[in-house]
């Protein structure tokens, strides 16, 4: 009885002072997937940033006398704590390559996502706001893009132009804007009819101004959610391209390339593909969890 009395008066006053933003943060803090994904990403980003400081070895340094040492948890006389995750077929430290590989994955994922985000958002916002003919043309562009197989086109273009980090980023970025465009378009259509847009129009705001300061901030939650998912998509694409030999070029440490290098040896040393594969899987899973969590918290109506 006494506990009830103590609790009762504090509840409503606390609820009253909470703004929508605070409620969102409250919701975010209790969302397990979001927190877990965010934590894993934070760790990977930190490792990537600090790679030159914390990597135990030079990721490029080959030492053929120390090749194919298994990770420490293996029961083998070769294992050593000097190479916690072992060494690859050229005697390069696997842990160090994994740490530097995180930089490649994150950089390509982020840059490609930015490029596709800018393209997709511009197309989507124009289609959604102007409607009519503009919408028809942009819809046509989206349909055309969707009809072309992404991996195949990316491989063909890269094989013709020649592979480099910049080429890979641009090719991926120029190919995966479709989901941005589709989601931004429908979000803009919803916002366009709202009162504050009408009042901005009545005030005589220029169209770019309306799009930038009235529409864009109100659809930013959708954009952020798609951005995370597309970043994961770009990371997987880079890994697949590198795996097929047309992404990042050796000796750059990329997770896809590490799996590709280990392909011929995996029947004898399965951990060679298990280690970079697990890293890739964890990063993509964490980004997806974060994305799904952000959607639950900021734009629950997108959930299908």
């Amino acid at each position, binding site marked *: 009885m006494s506990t009830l009395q103590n609790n009762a008066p504090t509840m409503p006053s606390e609820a009253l002072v909470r703004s929508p933003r605070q409620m969102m943060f409250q919701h975010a803090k209790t969302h397990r997937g979001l927190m877990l994904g965010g934590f894993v990403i934070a760790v990977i980003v930190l490792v990537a940033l600090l790679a030159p400081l914390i990597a135990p070895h030079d990721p490029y340094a080959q030492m053929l006398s120390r090749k194919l040492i298994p990770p420490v948890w293996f029961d083998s006389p070769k294992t050593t704590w000097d190479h916690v995750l072992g060494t690859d077929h050229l005697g390069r430290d696997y842990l160090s390559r994994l740490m530097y590989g995180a930089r490649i994955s994150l950089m390509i994922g982020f840059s490609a996502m930015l490029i596709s985000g800018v393209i997709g958002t511009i197309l989507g916002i124009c289609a959604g706001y102007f409607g009519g003919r503009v919408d028809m043309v942009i819809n046509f562009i989206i*349909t055309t893009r969707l009809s*072309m197989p992404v991996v195949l086109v990316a491989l063909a273009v890269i094989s013709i132009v020649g592979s480099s980090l910049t080429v890979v980023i641009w090719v991926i970025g120029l190919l995966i804007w479709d989901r941005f465009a589709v989601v931004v378009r429908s979000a803009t259509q919803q916002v366009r009819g709202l009162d504050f847009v009408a009042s901005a129009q009545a005030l005589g705001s220029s169209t770019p101004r309306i799009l930038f300061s009235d529409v864009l901030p109100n659809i930013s939650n959708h954009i952020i959610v798609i951005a995370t998912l597309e970043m994961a998509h770009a990371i997987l694409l880079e890994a697949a391209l590198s795996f*097929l030999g047309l992404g990042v070029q050796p000796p750059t440490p990329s997770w*896809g390339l590490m799996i590709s290098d280990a392909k011929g040896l995996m029947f004898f040393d399965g951990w060679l593909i298990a280690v970079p594969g697990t890293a890739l*899987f964890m990063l993509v899973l964490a980004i997806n969890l974060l994305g799904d969590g952000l959607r639950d918290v900021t734009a629950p109506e997108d959930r*299908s």
Partner: protein
Amino acid sequence: MLAFLLRRISTALLVALTVSSLTFSLNFLSGDPAIALAGESATQEDLQTIREAYGYDKPIPVQYFNWLTGALQGDLGQSHYLNQPVADEIFQRLPTTMTLGLSALVFALVLSIPLGVLAAIRPNSLFDRFALTVAVVGQAMPSFWFALTMMLWFAINWRILPVSGSNTWLHFVMPSIALGYYITPGVMRLTRAGMLEVLRSDYIRTARAKGVSRFSLMFKHALRNAIIPVVSLAAVQFGFMLGGSIVIETIFAINGLGFLAWESIQRADLPMMQAIVLVLSFFYIALTFLADVLNAWLDPRIRIG
């Protein structure tokens, strides 16, 4: 319906035309194709001969027109590497990729539709959450890594499936799973969402009231209506899988279109690459067209809108 069909057909044709011109424009990314063919040491005369033989001396619109009219008649050009018509090789390889795509689709549907239905029976139950978790985890797995890991366990360690090749149906088991699992989360979620909506409707309550068995209620009465959007999603995903099979076919050495594409890229065989992109795009366009028509036929609201 006729107006809808006409509108939809003209869009599909226009998309196909745009895709074909984009594919054709790959020619101009590569610099002079004659030099690529003859090698750096070729004389001017050699280059001229090659240009005339392959038609590179004509104006670009004429080249495009010739290429397109050829493609429409089934002539997709001459392979630079194999020195035989591109179309022959493609149509020889197409059935293998189709088999792989279809078996991957069957695997995905057989797995994801029952899972979606079961998840919808008790939303937010332990099973529902488990199914959603599996979906999220599956979506994060790189398909080539998943394929290699399966290969390691099923073919090397346990020796129950062949490592690679495409001779028997057993060769298609792992590739189909590797290709198909990626679309299961999407199909599962859509089935679940569709079921949840249908289960709320009046006719389900009526069926329940007249004592229809639970199994028949779920799989006959409800699923039939919930499956409509799934059918069009499956058609679209089938198109995506054909385009994405290149990674899987390369890993398992399956002699299909994807493997051919990879070989052509290694050989810098541009006409072959272009033809494969074109064929797969046209398949996708045809599939989405069929899906849209099917949807419109089933749901009159789409026809008018």
